[in-house]
């Protein structure tokens, strides 16, 4: 055991003295995590908000109220601007769209055939987001309507005004006018009787409600990623672990090509002790870099694990898996150049397929299916499970078991091939 520890310490010392290797193992993953976390940053979460400009040309209390709703909308990053400035900035691609609340907005009446109107100018290159934006505008316009109907007096007064406007509107055919007048009259009757009915039954909500929605407090069970760094830091850890596996795998090839392995093999120790020393150094480095990276994420970006114990289990499983993969990488090439080339290619594919480069939910379904074969996918799942997915121990068992199994099989295969190389 002392020889194994001595080999591990020697490898750690060599890693610390190799400035480029140290950078790629410890700092590169951190930079990746911070960079992508910042790219996707959003105070409310990782979802992108649509950047829009809002112009209020009506200047009434109704239009101001609507603009305020849009400004506060979590789906939008809305700012005020003049029509000219907004139009120019959308044209230059600095915003997705501009919304003009047109003059006469307050006088618009949905029941009288002249609803409140807005003008929407969308960047032609971002047409895909137009439907989403229209849906958002209708949502906030409906809120106004819903608010109106939740106040019985306001509703009755509005309906009365609507009936008058309908009867005066000669653009509406006479038969349709009569139908609308009857409908609005019946609706007024229903609303007028609502408070009395509420008193009799004891139920609240006498006012008109298009849909009653009860909000469930899901957050106590599953909060989801609290911020983009919750996603990018596990990815950063995986990049660090992959870099570590490659670095130690190549270092074993270097030992072979430079003759130090021969000297070690001539020492009064067994082959297993040599490989165990290498594996121990690799494991210690992987766990250390994970702790450093996640500790940095915790201190600076508030990346907070749900459970430290679950996180420890996930990191140990990840370590075991990639120590095995390191062993396999070390026998992929006879020379340092061949091992490095083949190793990094294999790692890139693993990372690409496993969600190490892009989150899996951005990928097509078929690629998500293939990702089951990548240890990177299971590694990220295990770490995310402990950080924000709210995994129970039972749920964490699957990714951890898969990781440990991959590690054991890879190490055994690598050790066998290593003997053959000798």
């Amino acid at each position, binding site marked *: 055991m002392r020889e194994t520890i001595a*080999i591990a310490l*020697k490898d750690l010392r060599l890693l610390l*003295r190799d400035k480029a290797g140290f950078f790629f193992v410890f700092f590169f993953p951190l930079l990746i995590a911070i960079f992508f976390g910042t790219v996707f940053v959003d105070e409310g979460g990782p979802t992108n908000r649509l950047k829009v400009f809002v112009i209020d040309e009506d200047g009434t209390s109704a239009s101001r109220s609507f603009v305020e709703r849009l400004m506060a909308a979590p789906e939008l990053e809305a700012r005020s601007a003049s029509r000219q400035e907004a139009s120019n900035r959308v044209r230059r691609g600095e915003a997705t769209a501009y919304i003009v609340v047109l003059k006469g907005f307050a006088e618009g009446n949905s029941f009288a055939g002249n609803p409140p109107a807005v003008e929407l100018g969308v960047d032609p290159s971002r047409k895909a987001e137009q439907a989403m934006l229209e849906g958002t505008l209708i949502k906030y316009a409906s809120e106004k309507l819903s608010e109106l109907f939740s106040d019985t007096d306001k509703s009755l007064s509005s309906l009365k005004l609507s009936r008058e406007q309908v009867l005066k509107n000669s653009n509406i055919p006479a038969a349709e006018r009569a139908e609308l007048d009857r409908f609005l009259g019946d609706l007024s009757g229903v609303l007028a009787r609502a408070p009395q009915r509420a008193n009799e039954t004891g139920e609240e909500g006498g006012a008109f409600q298009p849909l009653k929605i009860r909000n469930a407090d899901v957050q106590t069970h599953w909060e989801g990623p609290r911020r983009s760094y919750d996603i990018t830091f596990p990815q950063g850890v995986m990049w660090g672990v992959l870099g570590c596996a490659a670095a130690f795998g190549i270092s074993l090839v270097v030992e072979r090509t430079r003759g130090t392995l021969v000297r070690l093999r*001539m020492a*009064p120790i067994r082959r297993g002790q040599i490989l165990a020393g290498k594996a121990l150094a690799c494991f210690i480095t992987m766990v250390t870099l994970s702790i450093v990276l996640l500790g940095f994420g915790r201190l600076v970006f508030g990346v907070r694990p749900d459970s430290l114990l679950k996180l420890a289990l996930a990191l140990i499983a990840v370590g075991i898996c990639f120590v095995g993969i390191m062993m396999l990488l070390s026998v992929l090439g006879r020379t340092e150049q061949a091992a490095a080339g083949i190793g990094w290619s294999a790692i890139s594919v693993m990372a690409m397929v496993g969600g190490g480069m892009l989150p899996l939910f951005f990928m097509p379904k078929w690629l998500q299916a293939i990702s089951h074969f990548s240890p990177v996918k299971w590694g990220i799942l295990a770490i995310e499970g402990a950080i924000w997915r709210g995994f129970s121990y039972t749920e964490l068992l699957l990714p951890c078991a898969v990781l440990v199994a991959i590690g054991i099989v890879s190490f055994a295969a690598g050790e066998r091939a290593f003997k053959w190389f000798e």
Partner: protein
Amino acid sequence: MLRISNLYKAFGDVRAVDGLSLEIQKGEIFGLLGPNGAGKTTTVNIAVGLLKPDAGSVEILDHGSPENPATRRVLGIAPQALALYDELTGEENVAFFGRMAGLRGVRLREQVKSALRFVDLYDRRADRVSTYSGGMKRRLNLAVAMVHEPELLLLDEPTVGVDPQSRNAILEKVAALRDLGRTVIYTTHYMEEAQRLCDRVGIIDRGRLLALDTVDGLLSEHGSRKVLIAETPAGEIRVPTDRPLEELNRLQAESRLLSFRLERPDLESVFLKLTGRRLRD
């Protein structure tokens, strides 16, 4: 100290070692002399348990087979390729391999110091190996091999690629090992080194041991005759002879001698006689 019996080893169609048998006595410096590719390194690798022979056996007397890790504790090897960690210091390299050989604590520190002093690298102990010259690395290679005071040292071409000054320093260190009572197997393709250092020399070619004796024994058995070379006004005269003094008197009586010298046979001529080829062909 070491007994090699009827050893065979082939790599594909190439027979690297072909029925080699020899016995190394305790306290001697034994030279294994042969050209590149003769099978010297393969023999050494089998002797330290790194390679398994196809047939035959190796036995370290009183310790058994070198395939057993415990037996390897009495062996030290300086491989032909410099087996050192460039990013570690000289001291860290020696200490690391000392630990691998089972040294610990005070003994380790003392042995490291002693080994570094022996090869004159103590003053450079804190420098990284990457800053060492080729000769210094060779000496460090030797220090690593002997840090645990092995009973048997195998030095595989320890002077390859070094300048004459460093080479001389290494040869002096190896000669000093004899004074320390160490048993050394020294492989080389430089016949001058074998002639200068070794108590006995085995001449090996194509995996076979062609001759084994003391240097004098090999020269008298297989070496060519001495050659008396005389310079006269008529030109150079070369006379092979076993009695150079008598021959010199005869030449002096026959003509005026401007100068003369005696060329003694060497192991090169022994190898030439045994194989029909020169050592460096």
